[in-house]
Structure formats: C-alpha cells, structure tokens
C-alpha cells in the first residue's frame, strides 16, 4: 500500500528531461537577450528596394524634376543613405517624409502639401469642373425652354383672331 509521502522510485529519464528543459530555457533566454540587444541597436539594414520605394516619392534637391530613386548626384546618394539610416532606426514611411519636409522644406515632396497657395492645385480642377457643369446645365435648360419666335401664336393674338372670325361669321348669317 502506497502512502501520500511515498517517494517515487528513482527515474533517470526524468532527470534527463529536467536537464534538457533547463538547457532549452537557457538557450531561449540567450536568444531573447540577443534579440533585445539587436533591437536596441536598430533594425536590419533595409534593402535598396525598400529605400527606393520611399525615395521615388521624394525629389532631388538640386536637379529639376528628378525623383530621388533615379537621381545620380552626390546629394541624392546622401539622401538615399539618410533614408536607409532612418529606416534602420525604425522610422515609418510617413515619419521619413515628415523628417525630410521638416529638414529641407516641402519642395522635396513629389506632391505638394495642400496648404498655403498649394491648395489651389487641389481645389481648382474640381471647382472649374463644377462651374463648367453648372453653366453648361443652365445653358441647356434655357435652350430647351426658350420659345421659337414667329412660329407659335400667343394666347392674346389667338383670342383676337378668334373674336374676329366669330364676328365675321355672325355678319354672314
């Protein structure tokens, strides 16, 4: 008969399991700490495609109308490296655009921000289209409802001729 505090017979397998678990735990802890350290130092180095995906939306500071991803000047090379550095530091795409606008001004963007005089670029085309539609519609309505002069008798003239006709008929009788 077994009592509660009766020890289990020695089992070599369970000790081995403990050692395996302990080593596994240590390895996991080690991997975790290495992962944390590398995260503190920054993310992985971004690929050229990742850099160019952002660079294509920015413009060369010295050449006219040349996107940063295809620009061959030293200034563009420095900016692309700057994008890579910021990506490594964990900046998001939007944060990188914001950084470039803050550092170098809004002219670096492919599309100007809708502020100041720039709002006209966004507001003007739809406004012109709406105005054109309004005037076209009004013109069409006026054109359709306008009577054709000289071909249709008015009510007044119609009554006048009717009265004359009746008078003449009476006179003949």
């Amino acid at each position, binding site marked *: 008969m077994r009592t509660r505090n009766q020890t289990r017979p020695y089992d070599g397998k369970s000790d081995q399991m403990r050692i395996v678990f302990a080593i596994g735990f240590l390895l996991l802890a080690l991997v975790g700490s290495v992962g944390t350290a590398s995260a503190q130092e920054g993310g992985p180095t971004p690929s050229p495609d990742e850099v160019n995906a952002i660079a294509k939306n920015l413009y060369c500071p010295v050449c006219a109308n040349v996107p940063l991803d295809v620009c061959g000047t030293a200034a563009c090379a420095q900016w692309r490296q700057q994008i890579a550095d910021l990506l490594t530091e964990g900046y998001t795409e939007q944060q990188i655009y914001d950084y470039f606008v*803050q550092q170098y001004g809004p002219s670096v963007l492919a599309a100007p921000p809708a502020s100041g005089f720039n709002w006209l670029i966004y507001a003007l085309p739809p406004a012109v289209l709406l105005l054109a539609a309004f005037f076209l519609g009004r013109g069409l309505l006026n054109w359709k409802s306008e009577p054709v002069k000289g071909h249709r008798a008015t009510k007044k003239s119609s009554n006048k001729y009717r009265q004359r006709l009746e008078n003449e008929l009476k006179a003949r009788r």
Partner: protein
Amino acid sequence: MLAWGFLIVLLALVAAQLRSAQRGVLTRGEPAPEFTLITFEGETIDTEDMTGKVVLVNFWASWCKPCEQEAEALQTAWEMYSDRGDVLFLGVDYVDTEKEALAYLERFGITYPNGPDIGSAIYYAFRARGVPETFIINKLGEVAFVKIGPFEGLAEITSQIDLLLEP
C-alpha cells in the same frame, strides 16, 4: 458675374505668386531678411547678434564641389577678422545630411559658426538660387554684396568686407 469674380481673384493670386517667384536673388541695397541659425553645436544666432556687424552669409553643402573651391579662403578670411568683433561669418548648410556636413567642416578646418538650414527657410528668405552663394550684409543690415558661385580667392572676400569696415 460669379464666374468673372472667381476668375479675377484667381488671376490675381497667380500673378502675385509669379511675381514673388520672379524676383530673383536679393540685390544690393535691399534689407537683409531676418533669420535664425542654430549651429551644429546648438548655438542660436539671430538677427540681434548681427546688429552693427558686417555679416557674411555663405550658403554651401557637402555635396557641392564648387563650395570646396572657396572653403579655405573663407576660413582664412574669418581668421583675419574674427578678433575684431564687428565681423561675423555664418555658414548655412543647404539640403545636406549632418554626418557629411560635419565631415566637410572638419576636412576644411572651418571654425566660424555653421548650421543646417532647417526647412530651407534661410535659403528661401535670401531668395538664393543654388550653392555656393554668399551675401555680405553691411552694419545697417542691408545687402552690400552678392556672390553667385565660389569666390575666386581670399582677396575677393577681404576686398568686399574692407569696403564695409570703418578705416
């Protein structure tokens, strides 16, 4: 009537913008724009620090090869005037990255105050058109000399500054 009003307002806006864009760089005799430069060391230099001084404002960038032609001459000129107290040189680093800019300053041993042009605000205030460009401001705060491109040598810099200093 509404359409005509809209068109007139629009044309006025476009004309104002075009006029602003066509003004070109600051010219001699124009008042120098007010600006604040925060140097790479974190020092703030504003218009009050420039009052009563001859101020040389040099726009440059580390990627700009012509800027290298005048870098040594500018530093030599600064060393000639720095003890007087009535001459100030300011380097404005245009659309540049800080690491390369600091390397450039170290390479040419430049010691006068230099800082990044945040948002290109100073560049636009001076209506500059590229780098290098240099503006020399007299003690009254007016633009006295404009140099588009690099200085040809030390003599060109000192001759312009000496003209603005009392004998």
